[in-house]
């Protein structure tokens, strides 16, 4: 297999794995939540999510029918060689993965204006759904890691990127993050949520930090800030699917970047659904 074909195949496999398989930290987080949950209806829903994950893994079918829009985080080692056609091969792998999964055929047809109004229908080909612009980061070493994330639509409705005036207080910012998380968790409809926050200097930077939080976050390793946000929102008792219970938020990922010398912090929130983050990583070394 040539380098181009290797990248195509590995990218496709990462997309399918991200879409069909719970990682260990997700399975363990659900079992912890079921053990702690006292609300029988909430327990029923959490149990269905685990059963769903078992069927999806066994049959290699999507965890959720909203298979999401593919996003990729590419981390390139300083000494890594990027082969010719690498990005084209990732594009090809995304297309192949979407066709094989199969992804929900939800690419919108038409010119700029008709795509907005969705007036020309949808492509029948699952592979017509293009990925979002890749996010690239440099790292030490000679390897390239590619993380494929599949971002469903519900969390896009409930997410936002906005400035927060910090008043030189960490507490002010955290309080606002809890407020956003509570509001989003209440409206999402696919609780328990996995909340991902990026905090940066610009809207674009905050959104990219949020994506990185989803690419790296581990539900079994929660920082003090992450645990605080989770515990405060869970006190509201919204629960799985809004049915009540102690597990509104399964986990929180916070990624704090460099900050601007000013009175404002830009925060990007993605109120992820019960399957988030759907992601898988593959590592290449072409040296």
């Amino acid at each position, binding site marked *: 297999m040539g380098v181009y074909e290797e990248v195509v195949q590995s990218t496709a496999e990462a997309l399918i794995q991200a879409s069909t398989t719970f990682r260990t930290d997700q399975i363990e987080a659900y079992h912890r939540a079921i053990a702690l949950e006292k609300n029988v*209806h909430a327990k*029923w*829903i959490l149990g*269905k*999510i685990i*059963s*769903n*994950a078992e*069927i*999806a893994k066994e*049959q290699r*079918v*999507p*965890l*959720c*029918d*909203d*298979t999401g829009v593919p996003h990729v985080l590419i981390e390139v080692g300083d000494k890594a060689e990027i082969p010719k056609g690498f990005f084209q091969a990732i594009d090809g792998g995304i297309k192949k993965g979407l066709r094989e*999964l*199969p*992804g*929900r*055929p*939800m690419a919108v047809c038409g010119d700029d204006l008709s795509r907005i109004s*969705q007036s020309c*229908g*949808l492509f*029948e080909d*699952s592979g017509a759904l293009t990925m979002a612009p890749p996010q690239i980061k440099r790292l030490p070493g000679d390897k390239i890691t590619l993380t494929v994330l599949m971002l469903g*639509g*519900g969390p896009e*409705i409930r997410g936002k990127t906005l400035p927060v005036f910090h008043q030189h207080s960490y507490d002010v910012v955290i309080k606002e993050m809890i407020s956003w998380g509570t509001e989003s968790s*209440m*409206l*999402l*409809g*696919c609780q328990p949520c996995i909340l991902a926050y990026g905090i940066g200097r610009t809207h674009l930077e905050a959104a990219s930090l949020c994506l990185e939080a989803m690419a790296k976050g581990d539900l079994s390793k929660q920082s003090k800030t992450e645990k605080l946000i989770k515990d405060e929102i869970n006190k509201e008792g919204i629960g*799985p*699917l*809004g*049915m*009540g219970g102690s597990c509104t938020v399964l986990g929180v990922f916070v990624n704090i970047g460099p900050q601007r010398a000013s009175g404002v912090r830009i925060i990007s929130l993605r109120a992820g*659904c*019960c*399957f988030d983050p759907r992601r898988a990583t593959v590592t290449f070394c072409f040296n």
Partner: protein
Amino acid sequence: MIITTPVSNDIIKGISIFDKIKIFGLLFTGRDAALPRLVELIKKGEILKKGIDLKGSVLFHTAVSAAGIGPTSSNKKEIESSLPILSKAGVKIHIGKGRLSNLTVDFLNESNSIFAICPPVSALLSSVIRMKRVVAFPEEGIEAFHCLEVEGLPALVAIAHGKTIFQ
């Protein structure tokens, strides 16, 4: 509780919030794109001409694709605003997800219709589909108005008889 479609008014009267139900038989699917168009057909009195009989029906707010089925948020404007007229036209059980307004709770009660929520567990839900076909608006693709035959689609009753779990 086992529910076989079509659903009678008496069956609905015996259902309470927090009841777990399993649907057997034929149900319709529609979401953002199809439901407002369906409402227009009802307003024009053309729904039966299209061969669609909503009396005693179950309506699942989902797309239908090779990726499976799964509830979309029912509190989207296009969906929630269609519930009153669809209920009057005969839909007895709306299945979706998300919190609905108190106004919708009242509208559903007036028509003796209920709202049930379904976990977005597509792998599990897709495993109970026995048949699927497009009924109307095929140009909407995965969002077309479909009919499915299901064997034990699980849901939990969230709104019934003026009561809601979303307090």
